[in-house]
């Protein structure tokens, strides 16, 4: 059997917010391609998590339908712009993080002006947020969350309350020194699919302190380079159809690697540039000023005023219906190499919004899929723990039981440990014990009884498996004593069959 490979056929940055890659997966046996491809497509589209702004509190704004003096966009537009904002993070965080923005007009507020929390970066520093006139200032703080798909919030949700708490409680959060992460291409892990994302950030600040014309020039040049190379690439792609390219993918592959390298260099430089820019900006504005106008302080002051019944309306935390989906589009195709007609490979095309490298996305999706499927690995083990008989039905029953009744992650994990037949026998035994007790307290509704039998048992006040076993043995003995009972033999038979199937009674 050949090794299954994942190879990147083509990769390009269409622009900051659109990364494209094409992979070839395979070869698979005939029919597996669809399984893999479809699973990947669906997982990529629905299961990947992203980072987004979920809550925002703008100074002087009490509802999203108002406008700010001197700001060209209405608050609603600003919220929509923030919704569009593509953020990324190199760590996972469960607690929402706070970020700030402080901007005095005139100028266009873009994503690079945001003070983002540590480990959160914006992908496209030029993504616009608002346009300010000379007499305008825009101050707001916001929460950044990680999530999947999208959320629709209303201010009465519990989540909203929770977020509001966080937004108002955390006074001194470490802010990221660098606000933008131009490209996730920067990230390593080119060779291995499995690996933890690197923690980066702190060290890089030093090198970003310089900013001069030299860099500016370089940036321009690089941009031009980027454009032209991309253009060239595009035209090339434009001429050929996708299927054409598959056949010549070896060539493309080479091209791409060089392209990729160039790209990588380029992005490195741009990020560093931007960091520098930001630093000077900070210098210009003066940190003191920033501190003074920090939203918390102002809010505190305002709160005081409100309490005394001031007429000015307090600014409200406004929920943003956030999109977390990092993948824009996925396509796949099943390709059969004529040379090897019994094998097929999957060509997977991925467009991401720039917050994640397509390769990373494939990795994540695979992880998600594995995670999704992993519980099913346990099914082999369950019958052995119960030391019981026919594999088929009982197994499925227990499985169902274990998933339904003890669905907490912990138990699952424990089960998993058992399942993988770890060396720790005592743990396994414990596990077994637990299971047995669990089965004993299991409701008889889980057994496969006919309605008549079930109602009969319920009338007899028999609710759990243990009670049932007891009842059964009693009946057995009674039958042995040949004392006539009102329990019909058919019922008894059904009970015994069921219990046997369930593995509680010995077959004999």
């Amino acid at each position, binding site marked *: 059997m050949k090794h299954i490979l994942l190879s990147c056929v083509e990769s390009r940055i269409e622009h900051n917010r659109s990364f494209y890659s094409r992979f070839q997966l395979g070869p698979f046996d005939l029919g597996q391609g*669809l399984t893999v*491809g*479809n699973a990947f*497509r*669906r997982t990529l*589209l*629905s299961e990947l998590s992203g980072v987004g702004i979920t809550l925002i509190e703008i100074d002087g704004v*009490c*509802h*999203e*339908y*108002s*406008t*700010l*003096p*001197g*700001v*060209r*966009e*209405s608050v*609603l*537009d600003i919220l*929509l712009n923030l*919704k569009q904002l593509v953020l990324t993070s190199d760590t996972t965080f469960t607690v929402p993080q706070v970020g700030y923005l402080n901007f005095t*007009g*005139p*100028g266009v507020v873009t994503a690079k002006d945001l003070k983002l929390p540590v480990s959160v970066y914006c992908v496209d520093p030029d993504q616009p947020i608002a*346009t300010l*006139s*000379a*007499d*305008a200032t825009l101050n707001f703080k916001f929460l950044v969350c990680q999530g999947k*798909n*999208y959320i*629709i919030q*209303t*201010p*009465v949700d519990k989540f909203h309350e929770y977020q509001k708490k966080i937004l108002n409680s955390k006074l001194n959060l470490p802010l990221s020194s660098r606000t933008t992460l131009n490209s996730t291409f920067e990230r390593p892990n080119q060779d291995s699919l499995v690996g933890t994302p690197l923690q980066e950030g702190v060290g890089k600040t030093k090198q970003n302190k310089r900013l001069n014309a030299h860099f500016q020039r370089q940036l321009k040049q690089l941009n031009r380079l980027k454009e032209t190379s991309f253009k060239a690439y595009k035209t090339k*792609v*434009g*001429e*050929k*159809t*996708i299927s054409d390219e598959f056949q010549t993918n070896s060539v493309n592959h080479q091209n791409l690697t060089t392209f990729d390298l160039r790209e990588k260099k380029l992005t490195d430089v741009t990020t560093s540039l931007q960091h520098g820019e930001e630093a000077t900006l900070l210098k210009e504005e003066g940190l003191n000023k920033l501190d003074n106008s920090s939203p918390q302080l102002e809010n505190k002051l305002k709160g005081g005023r409100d309490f005394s*019944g001031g007429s000015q*309306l*307090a600014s*409200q935390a406004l929920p943003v*219906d956030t*999109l977390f*989906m990092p993948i824009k*589009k*996925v*396509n*796949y195709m099943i390709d059969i190499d004529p040379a090897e007609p019994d094998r097929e490979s999957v060509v997977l*095309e991925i*467009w991401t919004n720039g917050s994640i490298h397509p390769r990373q996305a494939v990795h994540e999706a695979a992880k998600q899929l594995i995670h999704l499927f992993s519980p099913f690995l346990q099914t082999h083990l369950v019958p052995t723990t119960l030391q019981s008989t026919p594999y088929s039905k009982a197994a499925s029953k227990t499985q169902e039981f274990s998933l339904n009744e003890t669905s907490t992650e912990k138990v699952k994990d424990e089960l998993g440990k058992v399942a993988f037949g770890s060396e720790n026998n005592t743990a396994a035994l414990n596990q077994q014990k637990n299971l047995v007790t669990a089965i004993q307290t299991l409701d008889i509704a889980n057994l496969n009884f006919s309605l008549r039998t079930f109602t009969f048992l319920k009338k007899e006040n028999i609710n759990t498996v243990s009670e049932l076993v007891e009842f059964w043995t009693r009946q057995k003995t009674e039958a042995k004593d040949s004392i006539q009972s009102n329990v019909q033999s058919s019922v008894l038979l059904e009970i015994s069959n069921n219990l046997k199937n369930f593995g509680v009674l010995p077959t004999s």
Partner: protein
Amino acid sequence: MNIYLRQNSFLVPDFIAVQRNSFSQFLESGLIQEISKRNPITNSTKELELCFYPQYYKLSPPELNAKQSILKNKTYSCRLYIPVKLTNKRTKTLKLQWVVLGNLPLMTKRGHFIINGSPRVIINQMVRSPGVYFKEVSHADQKLTYYADLIAYRGAWLRIELDKKADIWARMKKTPKLPMLILLQALGLNLPTILKSLNYPKFFENLGHDGNFMKQLKKGRVSSRSSSQELSGSFNLSEDVSLRLDDSSKNMGAENVQRAPLQKSTKKATLFGDFSRSSVYCKTQEEALWALYALTHPLKNPDEVTANLGKSFLYRKFMNSRVYDLSPLGRLRLNQKLNLSVNENITTITAQDLLFITNTLINLNYGVGKVDDIDNLKNRRIRTAGELVQNQFGIGLLRLEKIIREKLKQQQTKLSIGSLINTKPINGALREFFGSSPLSQFMDQTNPLAEITHKRRLSSLGPGGVNRETAGMAIRGIHPTHYGRICPIETPEGQNAGLVNSLTIYSRVNPYGFIETPFYKVVKGQVQNSTRPIFFSAYQEEKKLLAPGDIYANKLKYLPKSELPIRKLAEFTRTTREKIDYISVSPLQMISIATSLIPFLEHDDANRALMGSNMQRQAVPLMTAEAPVVGTGLECRVASDSGHVLQAKKSGFVTYSSAEKITILSPVDSTPAVPKLSKGNNSPQHFHESVGGSCKESQSLQAAAEGYLSGVASSSSSKFTGSSFSTISALNDGVLRRALTQKVLTTGTNCSSMLKNQRFFVEPKAQLYTGAQTPVGRVETILQPNHAEGYLSEVETIQQTQNKLPLQVRFGVEAPKSSFDSEATKISSTLNSIPQHPVLGEDSPSKQVGWALKDPQIQTMLKPKWHHSAQTMSRENWYQNLKGQNVKTFTQVESGRLVTKPTNTKMPMSSLAGTANSKKTGEALYKLASSESATKSMDFSTKTQLKPITYELQKLFRSNQDTSIMHRPVVREGEWVNRGDLLADNSTTVGGELSLGKNLLLAYMPWEGYNFEDAILISERLVSDDAYTSLHIERYEVEIRETKFGLEQITSQIPDEGKLSHLDHFGIAKPGTWVEEGDILIGKVAPMPQKNLSRYEKLLYDVVGKKISTTRDTSLRVPRGVSGRVIHVEILNAENLPPEFVFEGPSRVNLYIAEKRKIHVGDKMAGRHGNKGIISNILPRQDMPYLPDGTPLDMVLNPLGVPSRMNVGQIYECLLGLAGRYLGQKFKVRPFDEIYGPQTSRSLVYSKLYEARLRTGQRWLFNPASPGKTRLFDGRTGECFSQPVTVGQAYMLKLIHLVDEKIHARSIGPYSLVTQQPLRGRSKHGGQRLGEMEVWALEGFGAAYTLQELLTVKSDDIKGREQVMESIQKNKTISLGTPESFKVLIRELQSLCLDVGVYAVDGSGKIKQVDTMKLP
């Protein structure tokens, strides 16, 4: 080759002009006319005389502008002042005074009125035009008879008819018919004249009752006194005869009917024979008058009848110009019809008219002449808004006159003008009209398109029109004369079909009220489109051979040689080009605005096109608008004419641009645009002097006048002239008003004789705003030239997403090169970009600014050729304009009429200082300042060369339909804008283009039944991306009332209410708070009577420490199903509360809640082709079918929705949209493109798809085997669907029928007070009717308990439903009452021959049947 040659020189006229012109007509002449009609008002002795001087009327500026009026729930109106003179000829005194006649609601710039805070539209009425109409009636025996209706503008209705016996009668409402000869004679004609004038005098000779009369006539027999005695005796007979002969004569008294049989036998031929014959005549006019009166007043004692009475009757009915009015138009039409030459000033009936009507009628009887077609547009005129208001104003004046006459009668001494004139009658009449007339409608403001079409609507209903129930098919149908005037497509479905219509885009209404439509002359087959088009009304176009607009004219403007389709009258035939007289201006000529927004309209069935045009009006403005990829080119016109987008009034550069306001610094001409208003202060002085000096005739008069005038002088200077200034400033708010126009007094009136040689007012140099012809309120709106022309080119590529008006790249039209098949299309992509206006701050800004500042004239030259205001100013100017003398017109406009807001000189400095900080703007400003001319202009104090104009942007605002209206700035600081450029978008426009929906990727395929029966399947993307999220703003109103125990109070002290933190100290929810169902919006309490508590109760209260509340909670709470943010609170003054009440807190509050509505299952969506449906399911994007490139679809429609509906246009749109998506182009496809060859649409679509395939390399985009179809993949399985599917991108709208407003459920709820049955309707939380069919269903299934519950405790079983709860709690059986429905049920079962009954067991144990109907 320019295929648009023919269209280039003429453009679509302004869409709102119908409304504005008519109202300005009213202000300019109608009002004056109407008041002049009442002049002078005298008492019976003619000693006292009251005289108005309507020419000098003035209007005060409205206290609130249009927006404020809406917020404050007030009417947008002004006070009407008019000078009134009262002369007492006995005491020889004269008084002159300005009085207020009333409040006149004003039309806003956008063409509607604001009445009590809600915008209203006066729609145009289509009525029969005054004149005479000949009609024929066919009887059961195949006989044809004729009659003529004489329709007057105002006054009695007269019908002259020929009956089956060939007698001719005159008929009026409420009177018996009378012989025509008598009527003619009574009007003063003698018999010989009559007979001589007739074409067929033998009509009377041969068909008369008997020949005697003629013989008698010839003998010249003199009628004697005795004969008139006889005559009187004969009248009783005649009545009865006429009764017998004409059953339909209604006005016979009951007694007459009883008398009739008695006298029937006594009927004898008398001198006059019986009056059942029309050939009866009289000897003299006197006799005829006598007979006329006697005949029309059958109940009158014949002895009392005199000839004078007859005369006055005639006068009263037809001769009095105050009562009867044909109007000049009616006179004109009578003259035309009857070939008369009666003076057009005579607007009453003359004897001549009637004689010739009789003649024509007799001619018809002899088969000469034709009957009229009442549905012909030449016979139907439009009563526009201004005219309707004018009529109503006239009614008010009539009432006022009555009151004045009464008062003049009563008191002779100490009369003052003030006591005579009252504002009530006019206010009342106007309020009646605006408030309750069926023609004054609550404006449909769902989106700008709805608004604009509402203002262009024509209704045949309403007073003076037809009745919706009785209107037949003919009047609803499409008439050949509708072509180019009334849209055959756009009309409502249902009972109003055909009665409510829409004006077409090119049509206009002429001064007589007829719709005109333009045509180009065709000379020997050549279209004369370089000359101006000629407008024809339906009457004028008769007898002309008209070619339709979709004939292709070649380069030399020659029509093809083949036989061409033409229309002549109602006939459609073919002829050669030489014979054609005129040709339509455009193929779009015959359709209305909404219809013309449908691309590929020609491929849609009319019924679906109708729905398409109606549904576009229902589209909800979305939070983020998106212009259609496939449009027709009229989108920008709709947007600009709707007045919802902001356009620059003057060129200049933007110094400030925010969501609240935009400031533009623009150079000012040396000639002041605004008339020198300071002069106004002088005018009263002149007035004073001149009047004082000239009243020499009587000293007393002079003294009086002086006293009065000095008063006026002071007051007017403050009130009128002072306010005139603010008037102008208010003009920026889009105000339509007659400003304080002051003109020189003209001679010729009574007043002028008295005030001869004196100047009443000083004439200001320039007329303020309302010039003689200028429709007021038209602040110049000019289209971006790109747009204007853009409309004309069929296909345009628009490079997208500039923040400005989209840069349009036009396709030059050349021979096909890249086209897919040979006959494909005549469009190739010669890209030819039209640059946008220069933007400051780039390349060489200083140069451009300097240039612009130095020579504004150059700017002027660069103006678009088309100029709206030119058209509205006067026709001549307009045509001149079209000829190319636009510069002149433009400057005229600039110097004379352009009104700008008076500027505060401080402002520009500060704004400049402010913007100087901006990097870009600052730079620009710096350069500006450094340039020579600009430095001058910075000196604001001396010579203002630069002047800032500030445009206030509309913040989020509620429309009548609760949708949201707001402005979004488009320009950026430092940009240069030309006059007419777009400054801000509306919520439904993008770059000045109307955009009501979204372009969606869709496919026509069935999907698991989720699109069965027009249901629609959509992707979750539309939810998550907020693609169809709309904002809705609702208004909640509360006013305190007086109750039995005292006044209510708005307060935050509400008993037993937990959640109060969101209320302010008044008890009103604070703006910004999120409120949910049941929350208090406005806290209100009503006093309660003191309860008498028992001692232990008091003790209990004391122990608990609770006070007994004396108030009851009557707060306004958030209604069911609503949640949103409070965005605005308006505190108003109470209206229904007597002023003496003292209260705390606000008395009347309006509160606005904004709600975001995302799209969800149950919402209605539609395309533009009448393809509508309800969302049935929302799938996650990974489950949606996807294209070969991986893009998931947004929407899946049912393919079965197309064939039977025959709206194929949607397929074309969808495919062209797909091409546009992949090419990054936008298309403007004008409907009716078959001019350019067969199958043009298809070729265009295919070639574009092919081009898209070539450019993107996506082969699937165009597959020659199945063009326009693509293989799709199932998102769930990843498998390919078995058939290729039509996939494309179409423009889909979300309609206002949202489920959120309709979803409703009830288990328990309120009951009606009287019937005790559940209420109906969602707003009242009502139940659904369980009708008989539902009862049958339950009966059929044997669902006895369900049926029992529904018929009893869920219905009107009062006792039962009160006990239910208790029974359940105590585990008792539920007892039942006997609801009415139960009795019905018993009866129903009995009627099925089932022996069902109610039995009761009495005391002795006997079972006895109870009468069901007597059950309690």
